[in-house]
């Protein structure tokens, strides 16, 4: 008869499973695998929250540099002909620019007036396009495994996959969790709040070119010299280059972001040396991830 053998095997298997589960699962269950990361996230979230308030402050009336209505020649440079002060940047031959060939069927222009009004009324139907933001969804909380015999096999299978579900995209394989806590404890960690504040503040002012596939790889590095009051000295310098035809537009957007957000008056003066020269890398890749 096979039956006893079968049930013996089953029983052995279950017991072995139980044992393994007890060894492997139980201690794990007492460790909160996800919460391990919480100290870090909470840290950063708190700082972020603070800086959010800062960055929201309108910076409108203040000006980094007093531009006392610069001499008329300056912003309108390269005036080739000193004739009419009105001439815009010289265009080769402006004359024949617009002479569209109108469609021949003039006879039946169906009440353009009506059309015009209608079109004018066109209400913007959709709100300005919020970009589909592929948010990293919060990881489903790992189920606390109950020691149900029926689920043993499944549990055992899961164990290798289960341990702290670190979001892989962010680790870059670098720090183990303990390391980060150390980092936060030492001097270097102090820069984290500066980095966070600056990153947070400028991200609010940065609108990179959207919808263009080729722009997604365009990282723009900008070097900024700060004055002690957190204002920007001179013009931020774009440090890299690319033959991509969209580079100019992307670079202008990055520089604009830095200037729009200035002054950064929450930067601590007593640590001026840490931030007086700052490089910001604007990387839109994650914004457009499908």
């Amino acid at each position, binding site marked *: 008869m096979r039956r006893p053998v079968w049930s013996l095997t089953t029983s052995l298997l279950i017991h072995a499973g139980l044992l393994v589960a007890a060894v492997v699962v139980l201690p794990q269950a007492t460790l909160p695998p996800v919460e391990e990361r919480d100290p870090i996230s909470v840290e950063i979230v708190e700082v972020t929250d603070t800086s959010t308030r800062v960055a929201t402050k309108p910076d409108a009336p203040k000006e980094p540099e007093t531009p006392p209505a610069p001499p008329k020649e300056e912003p309108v440079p390269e005036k080739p002909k000193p004739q009419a002060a009105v001439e815009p940047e010289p265009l080769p031959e402006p004359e024949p620019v617009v*002479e569209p060939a109108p469609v021949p*069927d003039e006879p039946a222009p*169906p009440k353009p007036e009506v*059309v015009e009004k209608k079109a004018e009324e066109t209400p913007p139907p959709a709100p300005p396009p919020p970009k589909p933001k592929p948010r990293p969804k919060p990881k489903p909380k790992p189920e606390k495994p109950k020691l149900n015999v029926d689920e043993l096999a499944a549990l055992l299978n899961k164990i290798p996959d289960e341990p702290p579900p670190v979001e892989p995209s962010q680790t870059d394989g670098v720090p183990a969790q303990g390391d980060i806590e150390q980092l936060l404890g030492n001097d270097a960690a102090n820069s984290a709040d500066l980095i966070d504040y600056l990153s947070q503040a400028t991200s*609010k002012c940065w609108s990179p070119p959207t919808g*263009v596939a080729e722009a997604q790889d365009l990282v723009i590095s900008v070097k900024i010299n700060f004055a002690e009051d957190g204002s920007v000295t001179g013009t931020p310098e774009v440090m890299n280059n690319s033959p991509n035809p969209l580079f100019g537009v992307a670079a202008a957007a990055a520089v*604009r972001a830095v200037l729009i957000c200035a002054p950064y008056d929450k930067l601590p003066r007593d640590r001026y040396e840490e931030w007086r020269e700052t*490089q910001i890398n604007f990387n839109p890749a994650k914004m457009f991830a499908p």
Partner: protein
Amino acid sequence: MFTKSMISRRSLLAAGAAALALPAGMSSLTRPAAAALVVDVTKGQVAPMPIALPSFIGADATTAELGANITGVVASDLQNSGLFAPLPQESYIEKITNFGQPPRFADWRTIQAQALVTGQIVAQGDGRVRAEFRLWDIFAQAQVIGLQFTTTPKNFRRMGHMIADAIYKALTGEDGYFDTRVVFISEEGPKDKRVKKLSIMDQDGFNVRMLTDGADLVLTPRFSPTSQEITYMSFAGGNPRVYLFNIETGQKEIVGVFPNMTFSPRFSPDGEQVIMSLQNGGNANIYTLDMRSKATRQLTTTAAIDTAPSYSPDGARICFESDRGGGQQIYVMNSDGSGQQRISSGEGRYSTPVWSPRGDHIAFTKFTAGAFSIGVIKPDGSGERILTSGFHNEGPTWAPNGRVLMFFRESPGENGGPQLYSVDLTGYNERLIKTPGFASDPAWSPLLKQG
């Protein structure tokens, strides 16, 4: 909005390493050559750019009015693109009175403008006017572009579109699409007795003109690459045929003489071929017709219905619709008919594939689960995305910059009918294009030739 993930650990490490590299006490003595602090910003705003558009000025009432009208066209184009937010003129602090003078940047910064367009209209004396404008970057305090256009005053809408295109290109890096036209089918009368006329309008729904009188049924108009000619299908004379129509001269001609019905025509990117379907019994195959030699070439030979061919922008490949595998699906092939390969794989029926002018996507109509959707898929069959879905959406056509699509949407019921809509490649910014009556089968022109 902002999460911890936005600071990469790499940047933390980099900053940490930089700090550690300098022994305590040394850091204030020796300043590193590279920037001390490195910050990564990986999230930005996808918000329309606030732009100020004070009415172009003019020396007299006529030019001033023209200036206001042109500015209105520019503002509306930019707004409709979804990428710009024109600021209300009432909020402007500085009043532009002298085009030759730089603006007071601080005043524009105060109202949160990031860009400013100033312009003026000058009467030339020969009945024509010159529009001059400058685009300013408010925060960089610099002129981005300065251009001028000349035309007759009645062409003011086109002038506005050209200025809007120039601004769009300068600020987004992409070509614009405002100075374009759309051909479509105007539909009038009760649902069971629709009169369909070939029609043309500006991209924004203005300047609608009828090109045919509605005596014959017309379908699927398509622009030539020069925008001067349209090819379409008509039932004139009872048998469906592909026609060519010159919008400048009004001349019509039948494309090729075939024993059976021809349909679903489209130009090749160089304008030298028309590609279409030719019926053969219960089947249809895809043919090209050379416009000069009038030679035809058969590209597909299946016992199925192969139709709706559309060239890739480089002319090397063709996408089309076929039911050879059962239901309608999208296929691609080389322009000589070799290498035919199915690329759509989802459930439902796919039809009307159209290759993007940018080459990176193929738009389609999809019918599944009782709904018609407009979607895009990459030419290799990956990345299928639905942009809009509902009772009846059909017939996508691309703006020349490959960023915006137009299609028609039929509303249900006795009094329902088709209307034209546009939507971004992102699936956002859906807009109704107002037409005098019902409208279907839109086809977007290339950018119009200047001059």
